[in-house]
């Protein structure tokens, strides 16, 4: 028998362990959640209390309102931080001169932002958006809080993507008499689109998974936040957290977790398809 190199063994073991953990987590959630999802679907068909009822009640502990809240939250918070984050990154890479003090400050600030625990964001969101600005426990308070949380992610990934665009594209464009804004808009940003989208996907993951920062800002109420400026509402993760901590609906919590996984996979797939379409012909 061939002698096994101990270092190689260690590397393989580590790789196997990583994969095993992921498979175990997903497998366990699906094993526990999937049967419950089937039950809930059949309940829904038969008009009994179901997790998929449109309106929440303490009998059905429906997750539908929280799915809708989650989607609203993703769309609006991403809208805010993509505009801010991409603009900041464009400034940092394309406009700021090297060695600019202001640039250093922006970099340090955004790096610090990304290292802050989410519960602190929650506290800040509560003190600032909920109380000081007076938005109250509302979806918008939560949206603004997570928008700040994901800003550094988007700035960082966009910055890296812009830096990776070859200098020769810029030269070629300027050489044809194109102004800076047009060069950025038509040449540089499309070339960097993959990197920008990678950041956005990470950010979506962060928003979906967030609980701590939302408990204090958009709260845990169970309705659809039809008017997100005023009414609060829980997201899917918060819903799951509440189900688990209330301790009476474990089966439904697992089903919710499975749905959560599904939503993450779907959104990632969608972003991937979008990225492919946007960069077609390149």
């Amino acid at each position, binding site marked *: 028998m061939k002698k096994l190199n101990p270092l190689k063994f260690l590397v393989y073991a580590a790789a196997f362990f990583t994969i095993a953990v992921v498979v175990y987590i997903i497998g366990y959630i699906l094993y526990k959640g999937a049967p419950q999802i089937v039950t809930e679907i059949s309940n829904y068909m038969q008009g009994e209390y179901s997790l998929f009822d449109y309106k929440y009640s303490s009998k059905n502990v429906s997750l539908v309102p929280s799915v809708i809240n989650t989607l609203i939250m993703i769309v609006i918070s991403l809208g805010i931080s993509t505009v801010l984050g991409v603009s900041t990154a464009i400034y940092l890479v394309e406009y700021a*001169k090297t060695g600019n003090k202001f640039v250093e400050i922006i970099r340090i600030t955004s790096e610090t932002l990304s290292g802050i625990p989410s519960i602190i964001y929650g506290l800040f969101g509560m003190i600032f958006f909920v109380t000081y600005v007076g938005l109250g426990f509302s979806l918008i308070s939560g949206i603004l809080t997570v928008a700040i949380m994901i800003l550094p992610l988007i700035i960082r990934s966009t910055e890296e993507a812009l830096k990776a665009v070859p200098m020769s594209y810029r030269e*070629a464009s300027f*050489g*044809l*008499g194109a*102004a800076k804004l047009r060069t950025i808009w038509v040449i540089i940003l499309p070339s960097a689109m993959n990197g920008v989208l990678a950041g956005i996907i990470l950010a979506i993951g962060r928003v979906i998974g967030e609980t701590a920062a939302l408990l204090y800002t958009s709260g845990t109420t169970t309705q659809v936040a039809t008017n997100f400026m005023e009414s609060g509402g829980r997201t899917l993760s918060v819903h799951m957290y509440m189900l688990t901590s209330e301790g009476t609906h474990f089966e439904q919590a697992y089903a919710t977790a499975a749905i959560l996984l599904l939503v993450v996979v779907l959104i990632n797939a969608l972003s991937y398809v979008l990225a492919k379409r946007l960069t077609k012909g390149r």
Partner: protein
Amino acid sequence: MDNKIKFEMKDVNLYYGDFHALKNVNLAVPEKEITAFIGPSGCGKSTLLKSLNRMNDLVEGCKITGDFLLDGEDIYDKRMDINKLRKRVGMVFQKPNPFPMSIYDNIAYGPRTHGIKNKTELDGIVEEALKNAAIWDECKDRLKKSALGMSGGQQQRLCIARALAVQPEILLMDEPTSALDPISTSKIEDLAIELKEKYTIVIVTHNMQQATRISDQTAFFLLGEVVEMNQTEKLFSMPQDKRTEDYITGRFG
């Protein structure tokens, strides 16, 4: 020199930070001729070329003094619109640098930048530019395909077509064949000779044979100075300066 002067440089000095890259350069580029800049690496020939369409503005710490007169107008004047200048003075770079778009969009980018939206008009410009750059026959069936799928030589001719599409008066070429094989090189040289019918061309080259083959005037640069400028034939057959002679006979460089 039979033709009128298109571009004139007077007492040009250029600094990158503390480095004095061009020293008291005086040069005249005649219209509708090919002017070649030759000289060893780091002698300032590319630097001067990049000053002609103000690409050096992109370099931090670059300071330029002296006059650059394009048809008698100073291009470093405050009133000069830099984008209009670059439309008039096109550039082809050392390495082919097509945009990651279709062949058509590459060519149409320039005209669109300068406000041409009409589809038929654009089609016409694209076709003419590609024909002028002698690449139309090779790519007319795949205009919608990515330009990155072309060979290096084709890409470089595409870049020339792209530069021609904005109808410049002057074409600056910065060692346009240094990354190409001999066959592509000869195609681009033939093209340059054809193009001088309509355009004034300034070409930087490391290849002295190339300068003798295509250029009408040659300027020899050394350590940031123009040592000698003359009609190409004369410069290569009877150089006036000892340093020029040493360089063209291959004693250094």
